């Protein structure tokens, strides 16, 4: 019954009429190929179940007696990973939606023509795409592939973690409207995103600002993806984004955990009452701690009693920009573009 197994997805797709070279083969070959894929799916499921079973056994049986600091390093790093993982998945899902499922015209049509206006609107995209800095890197990459310029995507990348409903709610829960911290965070994030976007747009060749990998990933899709239905394209994107983000997440979490274990926090807190040093200390802390913008307000709340409000705002605005775990996956070369411009601003 060759009719029962047409191309792998039933829904009519825009690209369906374009055939992939496999489709020239006869139906039995296709059926066999399908059998192979079912076998892979079963195999992957079995492996995952076996790993979970192994996990359950080792949790009971194994007593590795790891020294406390090392154990805490592992616990802290794992905690960063488990806290970020759902946001990364959300980011990838939204990125897939933007790239594969939402018609291109939707995003481009609502934008003004004037570059400042465009970037201003783009910096508000986060209101509809509530991703923090873990999730916005794949999304920004999706925007570049969708025809956004590099400065526009950078604007999104910096604004989205701050100008999004989740962050606004958590910041409000933590601080209310005290000391104007919430307002300063929102305005500061908006201003920095737009100023950085403008600086990037001054560059004669913005594409060259991208780190090699990011640019390569952005280019990969040009002219490709045909002959793949949307489900397959979505999974391709999942494979690619996770391949970039996951190693970066693990290494970033290990660094964040290690600094937590090694640097005494009271050293940083001692700096809190000095107008200049408190701001610098908060910048360092933002870099070290790297908690998601969605929740960093709760994290910094205990410091509000020792640190000046200005330095708290610094943490809240600066944190999402320099987040250590996603900075490993950042789109720009840190040495040349992002950080040199950032420091020239300071």
């Amino acid at each position: 019954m060759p009719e029962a197994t047409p191309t792998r997805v039933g829904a009519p797709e825009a690209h369906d009429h374009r055939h992939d070279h496999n489709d020239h083969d006869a139906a039995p070959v296709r059926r066999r190929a399908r059998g192979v894929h079912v076998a892979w799916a079963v195999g992957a499921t079995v492996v995952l179940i076996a790993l979970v079973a192994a996990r359950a056994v080792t949790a009971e049986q194994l007593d590795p007696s790891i020294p406390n600091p090392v154990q805490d390093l592992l616990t802290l790093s794992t905690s960063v990973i488990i806290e970020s993982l759902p946001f990364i998945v959300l980011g990838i899902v939204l990125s897939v939606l933007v790239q594969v499922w939402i018609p291109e015209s939707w995003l481009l049509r609502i934008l003004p023509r004037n570059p400042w206006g465009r970037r201003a609107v783009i910096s508000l995209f986060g209101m509809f795409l509530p991703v923090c800095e873990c999730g916005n890197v794949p999304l920004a990459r999706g925007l570049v592939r969708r025809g956004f310029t590099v400065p526009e995507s950078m604007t999104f990348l910096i604004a989205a973690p701050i100008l999004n409903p989740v962050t606004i709610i958590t910041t409000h829960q933590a601080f209310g409207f005290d000391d104007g911290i919430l307002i300063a965070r929102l305005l500061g994030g908006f201003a920095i995103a737009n100023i950085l976007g403008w600086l990037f747009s001054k560059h004669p060749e913005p594409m060259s600002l991208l780190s090699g990998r990011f640019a390569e990933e952005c280019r990969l899709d040009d002219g490709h993806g045909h002959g793949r239905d949307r489900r397959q394209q979505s999974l391709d994107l999942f494979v690619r984004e996770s391949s970039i983000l996951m190693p970066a997440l693990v290494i970033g979490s290990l660094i964040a955990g290690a600094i937590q274990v090694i640097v005494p926090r009271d050293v940083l807190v001692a700096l809190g009452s000095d107008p200049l040093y408190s701001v610098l200390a908060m910048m360092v802390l933002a870099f070290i701690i790297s908690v998601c913008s969605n929740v960093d307000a709760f994290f910094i709340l205990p410091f509000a009693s020792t640190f000046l409000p200005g330095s708290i705002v610094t943490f809240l605005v600066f944190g999402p920009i320099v987040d250590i775990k996603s900075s490993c996956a950042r789109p720009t070369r840190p040495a040349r573009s992002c950080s040199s411009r950032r420091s020239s601003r300071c």
Partner: protein
Amino acid sequence: MREQTSRGALWRGVQRWRGVVIIGVMAAITLWLAASGQLVLYIHPRYILFTVIMAIIAVVAAVAAVATPRRHDDEGLPLPARRSRAVGLAAAGLAAAFTLGMVVIPPATLSTATAEQREINATASDDAETFAAASAADAATVATFTVREWSTVLRQTSDLAFFDGKPATALLGFVTPDADDPESIFYISRFSVTCCAVDAQPLGVPVYLPGWAELYPPDTWVQVTGAFDSNPSRSSPTPIVLVPERVEAVDQPSEPYLF
């Protein structure tokens, strides 16, 4: 030449699959942690539902990605330089090792190492409110006070009259040595977590019990019942300590952090 192609294939294979493998395994482990009630060792309970939903999506997507036909359009691209391939492989190896650690090493709560590094009771977030509530509390409420309430009260007042008729009942926490007088004072401590273990703040109540370390080594979970009194220790500046009537070693609770 042949060796060249096989290295390229290895690099491409690792490049393509490392993310899916890591995210799939981590999400599966996350689901196991949630099922066995240990997710609270890492994150605040309010994130559990969101985390579980996203982990299910990740597991389904990872399995589907393994099962879907490969695309071959990256094979025509030139291989990057050897050094950047090595860096990529090393990163993937480290990430894989950590992922394996998540499978093998038993989940654990934070220990005294972090409590000492972060300095017990260093922060004071909602002190005034908690203190007002504690002052007005009746005896039944006082008996339910945790390390959080008592540490707040101790920060706010050193007036012994306040503690009159307000004993600590079955106060639960783990043992951390006092920095000033480790011979006779330990802190019965808990971590307070607002989002995830990274922001855990150690809270503690000083307990005066000379020679405690022989009975209850650091990191032991204990339950202490006793009354507050002025500190008999000469080398510690803490004004008020808990003088225990009864101390018993207990198992680590399933929710070791205070949320």
